């Protein structure tokens, strides 16, 4: 067992941190928050130069063969910087989907993502089908796609989406141009740009069907596992930032003639945040390794445990950060409240706590414990 980041991963993380320090601050964030498109061309170009677009994918298709842990360290830094660039949504998610599909057609699309030629988003959820990604309500009949998708994190700038739909009893992944859909765009809780799509009998030719049948479910589950791990990475970055800022605040903010960090109750709050943060970091390492495992049981157990843990403890850290900051913590003016929204957001994507506890409980039945 070995918990050190490899030299390479450390470099990726350090580079990400420096890059964000130089190119993304709270001011940039506030500007981006109010923009309709979150794909800043200059930063996207820089990300490409940093190798991020190719990092998650095999060298055989022009990528850099990075592991999930490498991507997680980037996403951790994005979380720590509150950065809204839709790197995960428009590179990692669609890219891994296409890589796992693995057909020639899919690889061509993946390469256009890696080469920054187009922006593709994933449309996996319906407006009230909960977290069940394997049973979309959208369907193809007589060669026409109808139905809807919600919560499509497209950064306001994708031109195509990879969408789930049913063809008869089969699950399929389609590549649909956004221009053929009715689109409603909006801001999500964390400030990112989402879209809801309605498909009005869109003509689907065979070239648009990326994958169908039993394999499709497996591909989606693999990608969701990546995304769950990356949710944790983003939350860790935010939780750590919150802890650091709150500790600093407690040391400097004076009330009743003393720094508030001198009060025992505040001290214990901070110690609880700190010890939880240590355990959150352990869970991040764990899930970053296990979410790319071939063994679906072990992978899903790891992902559900990590997301359930984060949904409780990282959220608690965010709540305590506000409580210790007092009034200033609930304003738009300080970053604390923005991290808080990010945290709530990520606790709900790709399964909330109840979903994951239930999944673990049912995995247990099959698995037995430890």
């Amino acid at each position: 067992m070995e918990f050190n980041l490899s030299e390479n991963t450390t470099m990726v993380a350090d580079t990400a941190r420096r890059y964000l320090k130089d190119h993304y601050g709270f001011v940039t964030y506030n500007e981006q928050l109010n923009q309709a498109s979150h794909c800043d061309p200059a930063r996207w170009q820089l990300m490409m130069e940093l190798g991020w677009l190719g990092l998650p994918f095999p060298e055989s298709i022009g990528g850099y063969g990075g592991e999930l842990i490498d991507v997680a360290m980037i996403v951790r830094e994005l979380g720590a910087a509150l950065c809204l660039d839709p790197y995960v949504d428009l590179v990692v998610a669609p890219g891994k989907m296409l890589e796992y599909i693995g057909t020639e057609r899919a690889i061509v699309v993946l390469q256009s993502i890696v080469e920054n030629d187009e922006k593709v988003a994933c449309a996996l959820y319906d407006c009230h089908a909960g977290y069940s990604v394997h049973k979309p309500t959208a369907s193809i009949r007589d060669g026409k796609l109808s139905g809807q998708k919600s919560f499509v994190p497209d950064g306001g700038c994708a031109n195509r989406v990879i969408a789930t739909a049913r063809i008869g009893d089969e699950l399929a992944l389609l590549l649909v141009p956004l221009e053929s859909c009715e689109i409603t765009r909006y801001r999500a809780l964390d400030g990112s740009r989402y879209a809801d799509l309605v498909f009005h009998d869109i003509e689907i030719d065979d070239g648009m069907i990326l994958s169908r049948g039993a394999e499709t479910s497996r591909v989606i589950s693999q990608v969701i596992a990546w995304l769950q791990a990356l949710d944790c990475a983003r939350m860790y970055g935010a939780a750590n930032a919150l802890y650091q800022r709150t500790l600093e605040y407690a040391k400097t903010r004076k009330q009743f003639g003393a720094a508030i960090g001198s009060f025992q109750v505040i001290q214990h709050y901070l110690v609880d945040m700190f010890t939880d943060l240590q355990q959150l970091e352990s869970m991040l390492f764990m899930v970053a390794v296990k979410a790319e495992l071939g063994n679906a049981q072990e992978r899903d157990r790891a992902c559900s445990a990590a997301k359930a843990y984060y949904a409780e403890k990282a959220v608690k850290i965010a709540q305590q950060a506000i409580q210790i900051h007092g009034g200033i913590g609930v304003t738009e003016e300080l970053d604390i409240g923005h991290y808080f929204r990010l945290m709530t957001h990520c606790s709900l994507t790709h399964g909330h706590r109840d979903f994951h506890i239930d999944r673990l409980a049912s995995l247990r039945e099959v698995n037995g414990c430890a």
Partner: protein
Amino acid sequence: MNLEFTQEELDFQKSIRAWMRENVPEELERVSALGNMPTKSQQQQWERSLGKQGWLALTWPEQYGGPGWTATQRYIFDIERAMAGAPPTSPFGVAMVGPVIYTFGSPEQKERWLPGITSGETLWCQGYSEPNAGSDLASLKTRAERKQDHYLVNGQKIWTTQAHWADMMFCLVRTDPEAKKQQGISFLLIDMKTPGIEIRPIYSIDGHHHLNEVYFTDVEVPLENLVGQEGMGWTIAKFLLTHERTTIAGVADSYYALARMKQAIEDVPYYTDKPSARRRMAELEVELMALEYTNFRTVAATDEGKPFGPESSGLKIKGTELQQKMSQAMVEMGGLMSLAWDSPSVVGNESFNNAPRRYNFLRACTIYGGSNEIQKNVLAKMLLGL
């Protein structure tokens, strides 16, 4: 021991319920149903319509415009108001400055200010907190210097809710910079249109504008706007802390929130995890009942003319904790639906789409008016003798 309302009280309840059904504007109901906050005009229109009934200054003596109700009637009114989807009334005039004026004010002050409060015409805000005087209120620095015929006010207030709506502010100011911390503080009424007052909005993480910073630069306040004597500010502030607590726990609005929560889950056609949502709501309901009956005890004691007993001391702490817990449950039960922050159309369910705003807003409720940590410090000292 009797937990039933009397026949008279039941009749009263019936009449209030009927009135609410007629008079709560539909758009206001909709605002509440989604967990939103009313606009200024919605809020003021609603308060004026209560004012017309004489139902605004509920706790006041009849001579100043109170309805002469018992605490139980006020409690019933609050339940019926909340369950009809009407918002609570703004506390600053009715619950705060009003009682200060009729208790400590001169006859002229009573005549001048009280009618505007009971009618809902004058909107007030509270100038207490300052950047370096949050939990430690007594550190406040805003200076009111006594001149020939006015006080000259300089300084800054922060977290001033609805300052941008308000006609008047009641304000703690330091009139004697030499006196010890609490002693040099006075209670001043300030017209918000006075030259030298500048309001800067503070947006909250629910995305709305409730809070403000208020800057005073050489603001001239007439001497007659001092309530009580100079140096009595701290006494008056403490008086307010022990005033009326029969609705501080927010029980009525929490029951309304619970009802909305249940409704939202029933309204979502494919809600996947109803049994677990129902269990979670049952857990919240248990806590709410404990708070409700503790609150009942305070109400009943008030009607018997007893001072607030120890049972009322935790109402604010427990009430705010529960509000936060409920709003968090709502967000979590919403799942992905809670992510649609500002969608122009409904995504799945509008109540869930709105849930995070309320959740975010309510993070402040364990902070303002003395954080729950400060409340516990005070209880430890005053009640437990530690």
